[in-house]
């Protein structure tokens, strides 16, 4: 390679380095200015909300004044980043205010910008904006857009369909569960938890009939979701649904069943659970079930002695541990001594 070419490459490298320095400086300056701007929006919005919720009787603030103030701090359609930040603030505020003030806040939200910003986002092509729009719609309870959101529950993009599913739960409550068996793509554990949490936050009164309607679904995620709902609401009447899945062929379903069962103290069905124990093919899950049986019933010597005689070392040790710590040390000692004599260690 010619020296001149090397020098040229060096110059280009130096230029890139200088560009990187400029980018770092620009990023830092921009961030500082942006933080200042966002603080201004936040403070102004906080003031607007407090003046609206707790008005000064002699000098009440009008909606026109609020709108003017918002424009003054840069909440305009041409400045989408500011609008986006305001939406985030509105959602955050709404989450933390309850009761009558919550309703008044909704009135305020109907009057100030950025109304219609969210639905415009839902109608865009990109997945990020679409999903953000749906999130804003359900967070701000804009029920009027439900019909546009329903078809998105099976959208090809993971985040769009997730947000659409949550929107259905928020708007339709227990009724929305009827969509679950017909979802085309898997529902992740995160999404299941989020659905359960939203349902519980907004619809505290359980509607068991709606739940039972989807019991027939053979989708793995539907089964897991149903069990999580039963657990969250503490629906003891539905415990049989959980029990019937203890020996399911799918590992994840069994895992969810054992996990959910742990929230209930089912003393009357312990014998049934003991029967399930032998039908579980995975040792780690058997161990979890032993823990449950131990914690929820009187010590059953025969059951644990049987476990002590199984071929699996982990189960054997687990049973030994339970017996040892429950006042049956001599049984464990006797069993192990027997083992030694069988292997001939002490023979003759």
């Amino acid at each position, binding site marked *: 390679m010619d020296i001149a070419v090397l020098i040229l490459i*060096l110059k280009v490298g130096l230029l890139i380095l200088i560009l990187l*320095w400029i980018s*770092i400086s620009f*990023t830092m300056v921009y961030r500082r200015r942006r933080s200042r701007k966002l603080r201004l929006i936040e403070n102004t919005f906080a003031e607007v909300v407090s003046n609206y919720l707790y008005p000064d009787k002699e000098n009440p603030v009008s909606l026109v004044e609020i709108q003017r103030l918002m424009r003054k701090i840069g909440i305009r359609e041409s400045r989408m980043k500011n609008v986006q930040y305001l939406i985030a603030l509105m959602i955050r505020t709404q989450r933390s205010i309850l009761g009558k003030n919550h309703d008044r806040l909704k009135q305020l939200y109907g009057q100030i910008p950025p109304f219609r910003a969210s639905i415009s986002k839902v109608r865009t092509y990109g997945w990020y904006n679409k999903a953000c729009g749906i999130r804003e719609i359900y967070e701000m309870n804009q029920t009027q857009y439900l019909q546009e959101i329903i078809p998105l529950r099976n959208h090809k993009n993971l985040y769009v369909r997730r947000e659409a599913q949550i929107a259905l739960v928020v708007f339709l409550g227990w009724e929305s569960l009827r969509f679950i068996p017909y979802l085309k793509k898997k529902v992740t554990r995160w999404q299941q938890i989020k659905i359960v949490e939203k349902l519980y936050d907004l619809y505290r009164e359980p509607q068991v009939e709606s739940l039972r309607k989807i019991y027939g679904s053979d989708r793995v995620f539907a089964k897991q979701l149903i069990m*999580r709902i039963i657990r969250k609401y503490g629906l003891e009447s539905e415990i049989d649904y959980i029990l019937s899945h203890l020996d399911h062929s799918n590992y994840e379903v069994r895992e969810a069943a054992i996990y959910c069962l742990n*929230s209930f103290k089912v003393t009357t069905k312990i014998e049934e659970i003991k029967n399930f124990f032998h039908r579980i093919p995975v040792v780690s899950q058997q161990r979890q079930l032993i823990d449950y049986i131990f914690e929820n019933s009187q010590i059953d010597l025969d059951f644990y002695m049987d476990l002590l005689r199984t071929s699996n070392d*982990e189960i054997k040790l687990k049973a030994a541990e339970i017996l040892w*710590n429950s006042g049956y040390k001599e049984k*464990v000692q006797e069993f192990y001594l027997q083992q030694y004599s069988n292997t001939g260690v002490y023979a003759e």
Partner: protein
Amino acid sequence: MQNDLFNISWGDIVFWSVNYFFFFYGLVLMSIYFTGIILANRAIRRTKKRSVFLNVKDIVGATDIPSVTLVAPAYNEGLTIVENVKSLLSIQYPYYDFILVNDGSKDDSLEKLIKEFELEPGDATFITQPIPTASVNYIYKSRNKKYTHLTVIDKNNGGKADALNAGMNFANSELVICTDADCIIEQDALIKMVRPYLEEDDKEIIACGAGIGVVNDSVVKNGVLKELRLPNNLVPMVQVVECIRAFLLGRMAWGEINGLMLVSGAFGMYPLKRVIEVGGFDVKMVGEDLELCVRLRTHMEDLQLPYKVVYLPETLCWTEAPPTYQVLINQRDRWSRGLWETISIHKHLLFNRKYGKMGLIYFPYWVIFEFGAPLVEFLGIIALFVFAVLGLINWPYAILIYSFIYLLGCLFSTAAVFMYVKSFNHYTKPRQVIELLLASYLEPFLYHPVLLYGQMKGYYKKLFKIKSGWGVMTRKGFKISED
């Protein structure tokens, strides 16, 4: 033409072969690094976008998120043990157990813990231990309801890996985090770490790591990082840039193509079930974190199950970096021995089609570049010296080439700092950024040669079978805020 070919001497052949070898090796390595920048940038942007829809606040009140056990081994850490445990106990997560394993400390660590946390011993005779470890003496639980999630295991000394195994034996949770007792972990770290496990549906997450930051000379109060400062000395300051490069660029890039082979031992989360299946950490290794990750991946490949190793770009764990050259040399010596051992144990993976991309790309990368780079660099120095003595070097040309390589290094570090400044709010003052950049520009002269020496020392020990353990990591301690 033919005559010219016959006139080439063996000396020329050796000279040009050596030159081209170094040239192409460097070229490939640089290409990988710069591809890494592109991949990492993509991964960070995507993670940022996704995080809008994976807000931890949405599930923070949930009762069916996975339980997590944090296991931290401690050996002779009596001076700071109480503060460290308090710090780790303050982590916010609803289903969280903390197991501290006293690995046969010879100081008063255990006595201090018993007194401070009102511990009382339990019977450890019959507890199921799926992974064999050095014998456990007692298991301590606190009488104080404030510390119900704390368990202290007192066991005979067996090393860090053995202590972690003992902790995992007693864990009764879905996930387990392995860390060091003196790490400062962000309050919301666990919920952020759990997120990938809940989110993934097609592949099983077998390990998850996050960024680790350098906390030397920063202000810590009640075990919580109050003010992040840049270290005063060059050695730890360069390690700040090194961490940014390694975690933000390197691991994010490899994570993007599911090629991560290492989740740092200072802060790594694993599904307990899988770790027990593979028999836990290998107690004979000094690089137990790397080896476990490789073994977990191999295990999943053997089972033919889809899996993923993920990395979060956020810094969720803060630790003290080696403050002096001597401690740094010890650390890098240990790391290179760990790498040597891991590569020796898993050499069957090299270019093994059975293990897919891991066998054909990721493991060979570790062998050729992670393991090979210090060797190539060392040989390069020897070659340079020999060629200089023989008068074979065209100095103006060589200086230009070295300047170019130095510039590439500066570009890479600057890009890393830029991405960090853009994505995180940790170092926001112009002075801090300038100091970071200066440290990275001085690195090739004042830091890298020492690093190379440490690595070569490790290889030397392995080559000549010189026995060496973990070495001593002298810590300076954090600045503790009084108010």
